[in-house]
């Protein structure tokens, strides 16, 4: 095994960049779960809606791509708020299984709605950035840009949660949702804001994915299940844990695929997940 093999190094870089793809949805999903205590099973479908929004605004409405990206965030944030107001809030005191089934139902509603509006055709932005070539190592320009944007998004979220009053309230609610109302924090408002932020993160993830994948109503199948796995592995509700687990999973898939086969890499990833569940059932990075 030659660790300086340029192809191995390329696989390592690919793994880190792939982690960046998983990190943002994992972050958003964990934020919502940590604060509201409800798993949005339809999270990948919110990303899908965002991808369609970018595609539509850019290729059909003729908006410049950066403007379409900017518009995508509030669109999906609004969708996140709507999801909370219409589906999650009425079920906040219901058993968890009802909440899961309800957001699972929204998943099918969004897939069906996208099929009706956009048909089952695969849509593409048709944009690509030239690759970077460092020696024999090729790095996709598009994936690198997406990775940087994911890091930037995570940093902005961290700053928001750390340095703003609302962010502090969100963190406090995530720590103890029983006590915070006694301190004057309105949990209903915080839940709504967290849902909007979670939606905005799905919107940002959509901007990063729409340049890498074709858009179709079932695109969520490509990254949704693995995002949930990452969240559980990092510790549901643990934002930092989910963020780190995304990179760990990206590396396992990429390096496993390099040393074995693409299918083998997923066997290793799922075996590792099961192992983590045995050893640390609350997640790898649970405090």
């Amino acid at each position, binding site marked *: 095994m030659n660790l300086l093999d340029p*192809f191995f190094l*390329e*696989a390592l870089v*690919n*793994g880190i*960049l*792939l982690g960046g*793809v998983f990190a943002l949805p994992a972050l958003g999903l964990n934020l919502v779960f940590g604060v509201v205590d409800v798993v949005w099973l339809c999270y990948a479908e919110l990303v899908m809606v965002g991808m369609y929004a970018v595609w539509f605004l850019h290729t*059909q409405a003729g908006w410049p791509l950066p403007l379409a990206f900017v518009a995508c965030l509030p669109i999906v944030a609004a969708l996140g708020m709507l999801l909370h107001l219409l589906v999650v809030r009425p079920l906040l005191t219901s058993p968890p299984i009802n909440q899961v089934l309800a957001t699972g139902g929204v998943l099918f509603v969004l*897939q*069906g709605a996208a*099929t*009706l*509006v*956009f*048909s*089952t*055709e*695969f849509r*593409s932005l*048709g944009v*690509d*950035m*030239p*690759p970077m*070539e460092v020696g024999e190592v*090729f790095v*996709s*320009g*598009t*994936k690198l840009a997406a990775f940087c944007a994911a890091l930037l998004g995570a940093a902005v979220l961290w700053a928001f949660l750390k340095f703003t009053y609302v962010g502090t309230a969100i963190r406090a609610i995530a720590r103890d949702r029983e006590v915070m109302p006694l301190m004057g924090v309105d949990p209903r408002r915080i839940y709504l804001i967290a849902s909007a932020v979670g939606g905005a993160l799905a919107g940002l993830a959509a901007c990063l994915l729409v340049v*890498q*994948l*074709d858009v*179709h*109503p*079932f*695109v969520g*199948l*490509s*990254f949704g299940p*693995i995002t949930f796995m990452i969240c559980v592995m990092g510790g549901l509700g643990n934002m930092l844990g989910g963020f780190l687990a995304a990179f760990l999973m990206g590396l396992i*898939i*990429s390096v496993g*695929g*390099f040393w074995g*086969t*693409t*299918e083998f*890499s*997923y066997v290793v990833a799922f075996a590792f997940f099961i192992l983590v569940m045995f050893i640390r059932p609350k997640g790898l990075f649970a405090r």
Partner: protein
Amino acid sequence: MERNGTSRRTLLQAGAGLGLAAGVPATARAQTAPARGGDPLRVGLLTDLSGPFAGAGSVPLFNGSEVAIALFNERGGVDGRPVVAVSADSQSKADVAINEAERLLGQEGLEVVMGVYSSAHAVPLSGRFEAQKKIMWITSAIATAVLKDKHFRYVFRPTVHSDQYAEGTVSVIHEQAQKKLGMAPEKVKLAVIYEDGPYGTGVSSAIEANAKKFNMPVVLKEAYSATTPDLSTLVTKLRRERPDVVYQAGYNPDITLFLRQARSGGLRFRMLFGHGAGWSQIDRLWETFGKDLQGMGNADPAATQMLDWERLQPGVGELAKTFVARYQAKHKMNDLPTHASMGFNNTWIFLEHVLKPAVRKTGGMTAEALREAALQVDIPEGGTIQGYGVKFEPPESSMAGQNSRSLCVVMQFDNAKSHVIWPASLGRDPVLPLPPESPYALRS
């Protein structure tokens, strides 16, 4: 919104409206023409109208069948009895396909179900049809494993099987290597990547077998899931192995994902061949990649518009012309996808050459009568709109139910059109290697 193709909304609306006209449950019907008298003849039509397979060819497959049924009814059906299609959506899921097939056979009481896009569905379905002694008429699913050594009596496949794909795409390189690539065939390095279902596995095994036959080295053979979010490591491994020719058997979105990541990952080769499914959606692929696809190849039964209709049997060219005109008018297509021709052709073969004689002979349409009629079909080469003839292998054959006269051709993309390049007798001279301006072309 829907510049090309048909949306699920259109399909369901058509099904609902026409179903009401027939006085049957709206969600289950897709009758495509007014009745002319006599009891309607009901057939099942099972395709994927939603899920990933819908955009990878299953919707054109349905649309082609729909045109065939409408035209057949307009021409009088079976002595005035119209055909009514009871359609069902497999949703790109094998379990849904099985449940829907059970519903069509059980609740709807049908004797025959046509369609089935995916081999991953055809494999579990075929055994069930055989056990229930009902006719399964496969219009698309191509994996050899669906029929190989099964000796089915009630499962028929008028279209090609996966072994034929590989025979074509490997033969092209074997025949042209010295002349066009300046290499002895034994020196041409091949790589095979494929989705891990029966379709991809069947095609890849056949490519490997054909490569072995010609003593051509396969430097990498690897499967992946069609819904994988990333193929960049596979691209890295391909780059390490430096294949001259890459063979892919994929649906979508894996095809576009691979092409995109291969381009950004610096993968270069002399030629790439797809094998039907997502590779046959040329309009869609060209819209995404444009001239980057120039010179790449694909194997599939020929879309009818690629053939010289004058050389087909009398009347068949006229039928093909009518079909293409109707399809283009209804679906606003430039170059019809192969699956549209497959849907029309294989449905037409059933209606005209199996259903009609069976009903005329017995007065009804039992599975037994249909089976006997199917085994009697004897259409010579040029007798269908896709150019091939039809003769089904008998039950004692290792490929029982397979059309032994089906033909797979290899095509090459040239400015958003596909042109036949193999067999040499049917097509034009292939252009190899990829043009130097292609981002995928190997720089020597």
